[in-house]
């Protein structure tokens, strides 16, 4: 009995932990590559810029509304987990407020018409 509980528990634990990584591989890796290197300038590299963006209100919106994120066929909770996983994986050691499901829902309902200009505008503020 105890062994059965252990089995069940370990199954759920692995599932929850592996979830964002699988979503990354299925929905992001195709262009951003396994290591997040991307193909600049067309496909941006995932690095500490993620933490820079997630550190401001406008940047947080951008990361959710950029078409690759907003249009990925996963629900808001899964997208929140995926973005939080990416922040930990590609911008390690940064203190960033994690995304919540409700935050994702709010941003995702607003369409970002010109992602490239928005990206340029956000990074102009950085330099």
């Amino acid at each position, binding site marked *: 009995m105890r062994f059965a509980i252990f089995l069940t528990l370990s199954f759920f*634990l692995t599932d929850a932990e592996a979830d964002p990584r*699988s979503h990354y*591989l299925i929905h992001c890796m*195709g262009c951003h*590559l*396994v290591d997040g290197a991307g193909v600049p300038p*067309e496909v941006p590299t995932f690095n500490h810029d993620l933490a820079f963006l997630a550190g401001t209100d406008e940047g947080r919106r951008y990361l959710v509304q950029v078409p690759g994120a907003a249009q*990925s066929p996963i629900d808001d909770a899964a997208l929140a987990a995926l973005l939080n996983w990416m922040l930990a994986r590609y911008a390690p050691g940064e203190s960033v407020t994690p995304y919540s499901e409700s935050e994702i829902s709010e941003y995702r309902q607003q369409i970002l018409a010109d992602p490239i200009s928005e990206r340029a505008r956000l990074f102009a503020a950085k330099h």
Partner: protein
Amino acid sequence: MDNVFLKKLDQWVTGRTVTSARNLSRRNFISRLGQVLVGTALIPVLPVARAANTPLSEIGDPQSCEYWRYCAIDGFLCSCCGGTASTCPPGSEPSPVTWVGTCENPADGKRYIISYNDCCGKGGCGRCFCNRNEGDKPAYYPPKNNDINWCVGTKTNAYHCSTAVVMGVDES
């Protein structure tokens, strides 16, 4: 003070030992030990340990369109063009950018994440054309559409053939 404590402890241990010796058979000990041994032996069977280092078991012919990894491919099979199911033929260059799907492996019944990297830089191979479209989405959903020439980020966008690289088990 210490002596009193040790005496009490000694009495308690003795009491427990005698009680258990009266109540439990030797076979009981053996069966408990057996449970522990089997439990320990089963730990590597758990998904946590297994995912780490199990080699992929596969069945089928990588030169056949029916091969499980090709469930969402659209193009010439690199395995018929001098490459393999996961490597480009000599003289062609793998596209870093790719489209990704999932296929069920009949050998273990699990879904795996497959990256369909195109091989580029040479004219079309022309052998083993294979067009299976499981999970393929229309062109207005580019990340999941296989009609696109994925030879981007390479020296030329000439399409030669397609590979199907296994990225891991789909845990989503």
